[in-house]
């Protein structure tokens, strides 16, 4: 059992507010690991801390056994962390292929241009965007942007892919495609950590589920375990539902 990502005692204060307050978890290789919780629970902040966009107030982050707590986002990317954002952030002045190429070229050091282009195309293919490769990213629909978000992260060849609500807003059919996509990605050997609101998706995908509320871990376990947990129901549905 190898923990591919291990987070210990993660804390982040914004001013006086503890957005993330002592979060610890470990993700095993080839798992699909879900982080759920109400809005404002600190899920996205946790991903920002893991991917290096924020500097933690305290805590330790290890990827494949090496400590990356002090590393820059780029170094963490090279260490094997990929990240897709909740608020889709394509580079609008570039085509889709170029967007993905950024990840392919820089995500893994020392790659040749030809190799990177091949991987970029593969990532586009996997994400179902191959036909749109030469479209400018500013011309995309939300759906396509979300796929692009995944493709770009995949092109960096991550060991762990951090997905932040990439399925939000998808129609049921699309969500099914997306679930299949995530499974395909996992089957290609990538460990996945994702934040999700749509519970059926979590149910279909997650091997483990971490529930957060108010910056703290409420419970961690299988989907079945956590959905039975009274604290989770309270966090989600409010007290009256429990009562």
């Amino acid at each position, binding site marked *: 059992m190898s923990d591919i990502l291990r987070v210990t005692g993660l804390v982040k204060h914004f001013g006086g507010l503890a957005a993330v307050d002592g979060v610890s978890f470990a993700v095993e290789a080839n798992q699909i690991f879900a982080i759920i919780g109400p809005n404002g629970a600190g899920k996205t902040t946790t991903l920002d801390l893991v991917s290096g966009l924020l500097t933690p107030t305290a805590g330790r982050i290890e990827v494949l056994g090496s400590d990356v707590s002090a590393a820059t986002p780029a170094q*963490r990317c090279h260490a094997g962390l990929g990240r897709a954002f909740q608020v889709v952030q394509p580079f609008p002045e570039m085509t889709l292929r*170029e967007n993905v190429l950024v990840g392919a070229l820089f995500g893994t050091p020392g790659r040749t241009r030809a190799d990177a282009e091949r991987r970029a195309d593969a990532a586009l293919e996997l994400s179902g965007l191959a036909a749109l490769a030469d479209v400018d990213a500013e011309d995309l629909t939300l759906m396509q942007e979300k796929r692009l978000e995944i493709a770009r992260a995949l092109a960096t060849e991550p060991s762990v892919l951090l997905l932040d609500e990439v399925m939000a807003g998808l129609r049921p059919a699309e969500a099914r495609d997306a679930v299949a996509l995530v499974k395909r990605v996992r089957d290609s050997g990538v460990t996945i950590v994702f934040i999700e609101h749509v519970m059926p998706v979590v149910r279909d995908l997650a091997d483990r589920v971490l529930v957060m509320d108010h910056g703290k871990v409420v419970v961690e376990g299988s989907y079945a375990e956590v959905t039975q947990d009274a604290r989770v129901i309270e966090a989600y549905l409010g007290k009256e539902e429990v009562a």
Partner: protein
Amino acid sequence: MSASTRTRRTRPAQFPWDLVGLVLLAVAVAFAPDLLKALFGRASVSYLSIATNALSLSILALSWDVLARTGQLSLAHAAFYGAGAYTTALLARHADVPLWIGIPLGGLAAVVFALLLGAATLRLRGIYFAIATLSAAEVLKAVVHHLPTGIAGGNAGMNVPTLFRPEFIAGQMERWEVAFLRNEAYFYVYATLLCMTVLASILVQRSRLKHAFTAIRTNEEVAGVMGVRPARLKLLAFVLSSVFVGMLGGVEAHRVGSVLPEQSFSVSTTVLALVTPIFGGLYTTLGPIVGALGLSSVQEGLRRVFSDGYLIGYGVVLVLSILFMPRGVVGLVGGLLRRRGKREAGR
């Protein structure tokens, strides 16, 4: 979904327009002096000087643009220029360093300053970055001004020997031909420097750096998450952006025969470095050059027609250009071509 997305025509095999353009530019400048001489005779002397000034502006503008591609809007280009000019002048004065070494060393001095400045300003964005670089440039100007007179001449500045003295090349020819030879020599030096700058710009645009620079400019955080190292690449852009301007400062110090704090570190150098690429078209190799040639022509044309107030016309051109071609000359022309392309494709 895909039905609603307009798929642009698939990309044809990349024709290396940029490299062909560089070769054409090189060929054009190689023959330009002789062509001017054949066409205009004596007048070619002053046309060459005007052209050299336009080349100078092109180098300045293109260098600025290279840095701007990473989203860093520098107001320190006068300092790069001045650092190069003074270094070259100091080496010539105190160490008799041959100019062919002194000028690259001027470029190196600019790079050293740029790296220090770049490292200090890594965290600054937008106008904060701009004002910090402006401040650094003003401080460097003051430092140079206050170096002991015996070293850098203080407020009186220093003489700088000219690169091409007519004594060396004057034979039994007419005076204007001697002047032509000198101007031609300078023109070639500037043209070489421009070709080097263009080559650097093209190499950036053709390599993975283009994507990295654009990514950093658009969203530095996302770029970082995708493995781009913003700090390192921003410093690289600083190097590329300063080296040719520093050399330009060195060459120009020789051409005009002196360095003076006010002259070598003039804020107007910085302003021109910024204005020209915006006018021509940002983040391209062609834009800044088109901008430099365009603005030089506009100014020269206006001053030949109106002895008074010609700069009013220049200002009007700038204002109109922003209102009617917000993406610069190159953006406007590019847009027109694309629209025509689409119309034809639609038929």
